[in-house]
């Protein structure tokens, strides 16, 4: 899809006094609109808020135009590593937005929510099956929120045993930033351990790091280096022998779906990014859903509410049912509508479909890696299989041609491909983390390879074309320093 080249005005610039989408008002324009006399004067608003006064068509056109300034899965190949930008089936949205689901109040009696609760209960059961865990709680609203629930449960477990000294969380240097940030939020101390040259964590460093203060370890497997942690059994034994628990960051679950399960690897607690593996939309930054799964030891500590089944009736399990729970993490029960979308997706995949996710995600990643290596790019871990993603390091291009990973990423936009994840994980220089997902065709992958080859040629012949990219977007590279130094965070009407 061609990008819209001209910028779009700020919505307030369309605003005119006495214009509005009057058909949306509950009372007619021109009729009285005084605040009721029983609301005290000193509690009333004196000055109207700065909201635009625009027609319905202006609103629709403005926001439609804004949407056209975005890349998205529906319009572009989006090989963003660690983000699993797979197709979001339209059926998941359509059937989650049926009136019976949309109009249900979260505090309405359970008798008026048996259809919804049945979906949630079955979702819990399916997630238990694919992860090999004993219990699942659905309320965390994002990956980091699930991480919080997981580490809080680890803390609660140790505390319930009177094991109060355990406040250290071990994290590999390649971990997502949310891992150490979560450990801090839970009141833990973060201990980082290095990663070997082959992408596996340094097991000797782990052995030296564990001790009587170890609460647990947070791991992503396959790791953010795009490789499977081969000594996972040994890692689990070291941590368990030291009295710690294992946390599985489910960001990369797509790689192994239907192939191997975190519960079988020895993990005690896991979060799943339903907005990655189970294809709920990313929505331009959210909402996600970060359901957590637990082994037997952590069952009493799950965040509430959880859906229970008694006979053929479903009901919420809350404080009375799970008195040791880490508590409530949301006002109601998390991102229910997102959970419905994940449920629909899982039912549409079915048993065989689950296995295929891991298989074809891995096939696509290994194909891309092999072809790019042959075309002159350097995989960061050349001796290893790719998982569902892999890293290309542009260290050589940066040194020899003066073209960085960021330059390549920006130039890809001109070719109509969203950029891979750049500069993460931090331990690989000039890092491009590439994740194609299983829903992309061979032709889409070949198109991406052609663009990468063309960019490499440009870098050799005319590097400034790459280093000054993008050239075809609405805007060129943005001045981030100015954005942070001269803060302009809200629109202000021009002084009259």
């Amino acid at each position, binding site marked *: 899809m061609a990008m819209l080249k001209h*910028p779009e005005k*700020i919505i307030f610039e369309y605003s005119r006094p006495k214009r509005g*989408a009057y058909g949306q008002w509950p009372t007619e324009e021109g009729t009285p609109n*005084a605040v*009721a006399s029983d*609301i*005290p004067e000193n*509690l009333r*608003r004196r000055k109207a808020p700065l*909201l635009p*006064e625009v027609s319905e068509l202006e609103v629709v056109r403005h926001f439609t135009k804004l*949407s056209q*300034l*975005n*890349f*998205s*899965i*529906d319009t572009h190949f*989006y090989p*963003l590593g660690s983000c699993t*930008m797979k197709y*979001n089936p339209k059926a998941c949205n359509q*059937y989650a*937005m*049926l*009136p*019976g689901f949309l109009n249900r*109040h979260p505090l*309405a009696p359970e008798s*008026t929510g048996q*259809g919804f609760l*049945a*979906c949630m209960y079955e979702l819990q059961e399916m997630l238990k099956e*694919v992860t090999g865990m004993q219990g699942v709680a659905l309320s965390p609203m*994002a990956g980091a929120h699930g991480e919080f629930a997981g580490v809080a449960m680890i803390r609660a477990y140790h505390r319930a045993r009177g094991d109060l000294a355990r406040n250290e969380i071990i994290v590999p240097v390649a971990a*997502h930033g949310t891992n*150490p940030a979560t450990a801090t*939020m839970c009141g833990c101390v*973060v201990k980082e351990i290095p990663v070997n040259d082959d992408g596996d964590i340094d097991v000797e460093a782990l052995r030296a790091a564990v001790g009587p203060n170890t609460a647990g370890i947070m791991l992503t497997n396959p790791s953010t280096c795009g490789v499977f942690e*081969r000594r996972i059994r040994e890692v689990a034994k070291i941590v368990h022998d030291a009295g710690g628990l294992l946390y599985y960051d489910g960001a990369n679950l797509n790689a192994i779906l239907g*192939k191997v399960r975190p519960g079988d690897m020895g993990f005690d607690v896991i979060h799943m990014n339903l907005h990655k593996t189970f294809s709920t939309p*990313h929505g*331009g*930054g959210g*909402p996600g859903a*970060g359901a957590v799964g637990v082994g037997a030891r952590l069952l009493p500590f799950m965040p509430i509410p959880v859906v229970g089944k008694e006979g053929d009736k479903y009901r919420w399990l809350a404080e009375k049912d799970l008195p040791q729970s880490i*508590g409530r993490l949301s*006002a109601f029960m*998390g991102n*229910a*509508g997102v959970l419905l979308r994940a449920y629909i997706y899982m039912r*549409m*995949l079915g048993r*065989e479909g689950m296995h295929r996710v891991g298989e074809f995600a891995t096939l696509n990643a290994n194909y891309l890696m092999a072809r790019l290596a042959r075309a002159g790019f350097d995989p960061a871990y050349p001796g290893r299989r790719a998982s569902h993603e892999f890293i290309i390091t542009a260290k050589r291009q940066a040194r020899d041609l003066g073209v960085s990973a960021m330059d390549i990423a920006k130039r890809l*936009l001109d070719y109509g491909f969203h950029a891979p994840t750049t500069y993460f994980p931090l331990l690989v220089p000039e890092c491009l983390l590439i994740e194609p997902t299983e829903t992309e065709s061979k032709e889409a992958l070949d198109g991406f390879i052609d663009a990468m080859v063309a960019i490499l040629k440009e870098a050799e012949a005319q590097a400034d074309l790459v280093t000054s990219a993008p050239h075809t*977007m609405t805007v060129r590279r943005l*001045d981030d320093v100015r*954005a942070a130094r001269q803060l302009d*965070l*809200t629109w202000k009407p021009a002084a009259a």
Partner: protein
Amino acid sequence: MPFIPHTPDDVAQMLEAIGAKKVEDLFDEIPKDLRIESLAGIPDALNEMQIGRLMSARAAQDGTPLNFIGAGAYEHHIPSAVWAVTTRGEFYSAYTPYQAEASQGTLQLIYEYQTMISSLTGMEVSNASMYDGGSAVAEAALMAIRAHRKSRSQRVLVPTTLHPNYRRTAVATTGGQGVRFEEVACPKGVLSVADLAKYQGEDIAALVIQQPNFFGVLEDVDALTDWAHANNIMVIASVNPTSLGILKPPGEWGAKGADIACGDCQPLGVPLSSGGPYAGFLTTRMEFVRQMPGRIVGRTVDTNGKQGFALTLQAREQHIRRGKATSNICTNQGLLVTAATIYLSLIGPEGLARVANECHRNTQELVGALTRVKGVKLAFEKPRFHEAVLLLDRPVAPVLAELARRGIVGGFDLSNDYPELGNALLVCATETRTAADIKAYADALAETLKAAVRAA
């Protein structure tokens, strides 16, 4: 294969390029004994026709009862344009706008949202959303503790007039860091300066004030804010955005205004949907911007000097600062911010005031109609907005169960969270309830209470 486009020929060519014989070989680094062969607990696949049938049946099973619960989630009119535009693939299936040049639409929308929600709350800056109104209170408390210049206290005062689930969420979210929420009892349905007297002169980081409070009663926000500031305590406002169409924004509370405002965007175009996804909002004054959690969008220029938008102040965030970030939040509730921004654009300043006035008027009519029923009276004779507590002459739960059988969701039973209030029921009527709806509820309640008397 659903959602997988590969032909057998594609697979063969791809394996050849990789140098593998079969797809299975690509998993040869995973220890054999860890591999699973089958997922017996997953049912067979359903095609779209079959899943459509199943979901339609499940949704129909839940029906569409007439709803009179608010309690933090409100059934408002949602213009068709809100979700028609929000679910466009370019918003719906886009990622977080880290690649600014390819995400100008989302970024500009967030900038417009920040403008609207800042003005609505009377503040200077906003982030790009929190998870919900409950998590926003938790993050606001942590932020106040970080931002407080004269105190290192981790004590936060929360009146019992704050939503009970917001209190629970805040406690569960911040307990690990040693934050102590101290509940201030409010037996009269409002928080008064007298209730706070015992904290006078103590070292406390913040006070949370909900307006309108959980009971729908209006708090004397000016006096409370001034008391807190006089005692060196920061003020966190938890507010309903619809109410701000007519109620004084937190930025104007008392002499100096609240320090942080937060709440839930749900009333702004987001369906009830069993509790989510909603979006928390969090706004503050410019002086505290570097202590804010979550993403923030700024307007800047590109290399040609042309206007553009980018995520900014990212050094606060987990992907840069890791263990020292202001919060662990990464994914937020972006799509709901999209819906709220479109809603606010359609409804406009006068429309929002009209919605607020109409909700208030309907709730007053509802209170009038229900308190005319024998055995029902009003709990707090105080100024309120859009929600009220009623007292029944018998336990609430069986009454609500009978009303549900009659297709009416009659309110939220307060007896678990506020046993001291007795048989208390929280009711709400937004602008979507008609006079006929209100009459239907009043009639059903009268019949239910009468029948129960007969049965007794």
